[in-house]
């Protein structure tokens, strides 16, 4: 008896971080820990919102919302290094 359901939170096995061509780089000195980037990231992967963002690059899709939204321009998108086999 096969019931079509999925277990919670199991998308974490999709490493959607591979999608990105650019990745956000944070200038820790500039960051004022406002949590704005944390809150607007569509992936929810920037760590503890009271701290400087610690991005989980396994899932970061490189959308650059964090770069655009950071009020102090502490985030810059840089070309993603190629991981080829």
């Amino acid at each position, binding site marked *: 008896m096969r019931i079509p359901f999925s277990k919670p939170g199991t*998308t974490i*096995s999709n490493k959607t971080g591979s999608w990105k061509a650019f990745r956000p780089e944070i200038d820790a000195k500039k960051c004022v820990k406002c949590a704005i980037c944390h809150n607007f*990231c569509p992936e929810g992967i920037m760590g503890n919102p009271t701290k400087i963002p610690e991005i989980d690059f396994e899932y970061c*899709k490189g959308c*650059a919302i964090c770069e655009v939204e950071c009020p102090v321009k502490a985030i810059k998108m840089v070309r993603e290094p190629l991981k080829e086999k």
Partner: protein
Amino acid sequence: MSKQSDLHLLAPGHAGCPGCAPSNLLLQICNTLGKDIIVVNATGCMEITTTQFPQSAWRVPYIHSLFENAPAVASGVSAALKAKGNNHTTVVCIGGDGSTYDIGFGALSGLFERNDDVLFICYDNENYANTGVQKSSATPFGAATTTSQVGSKHHGKERARKPIVEIAAAHNIPFAASASVAFQADLKAKLKKGQAMKGARFITVHAPCCLGAGFDGSLSIKLARLAVQTRLWFLFEIEGGKLKLNFNPKVEKPVQEYLNGQKRFAHLLPPLFEEIQAQANANYARLLDWHERSVPAQKE
């Protein structure tokens, strides 16, 4: 809950586009409402990107049945909880604008009429994104989609957006509101308020679709903010016939600032900009008037 990927009630690894504002909205919803909820979701981008077998991004109980019946499914969930004597779990129904404004609107209107105990949230990305960007009733005037194409005879959507919040409020439900993914404090307050109430509560949240509107995903939040600032989207809530404008875009910011970056508006010529500006200003005037009429009765 230490790893970044475990932080939220919605896991990463979902298939939303890079920069998808509706995906961010889901995070905001889950985090604000907490664990004691049951999510009913209509077919659409947020369903397909979060629950591809054998995976799911959701860490709260979740059900998807069809595109047009989510409100009725939610009524059933709510009734089942009632029958079991559960009076704490919040039933949250989430639909896209296509489901909410169009194909599921009959069911939603039924839910409103019965005042069933459901918090309905529309992620309003202004198009049928999941099927590749067709017009919905939420698609703004003038926007090109694949079913409101620009040609020699017709030039994008010819009707204004369906005024869904006013229509919902006209049903005399306890709470009908409009919010934006870019205005988080306001959104959170409305979610909390809605959660605390009983009966049918409705919130529609503007959450731009970069793919559908044709702009870079990095701009999703910025454009959501601009929509509010240019009076093309409003933050307000209606209770008992009284309207409260939660954000007053006093200064007229030209609509072009919002329209210009988006491919769906690329065909627009100046007369249409003026038309859209006039619509924006008229909507503003109308809501402000309602707001001001409602003021004496408002608590704040």
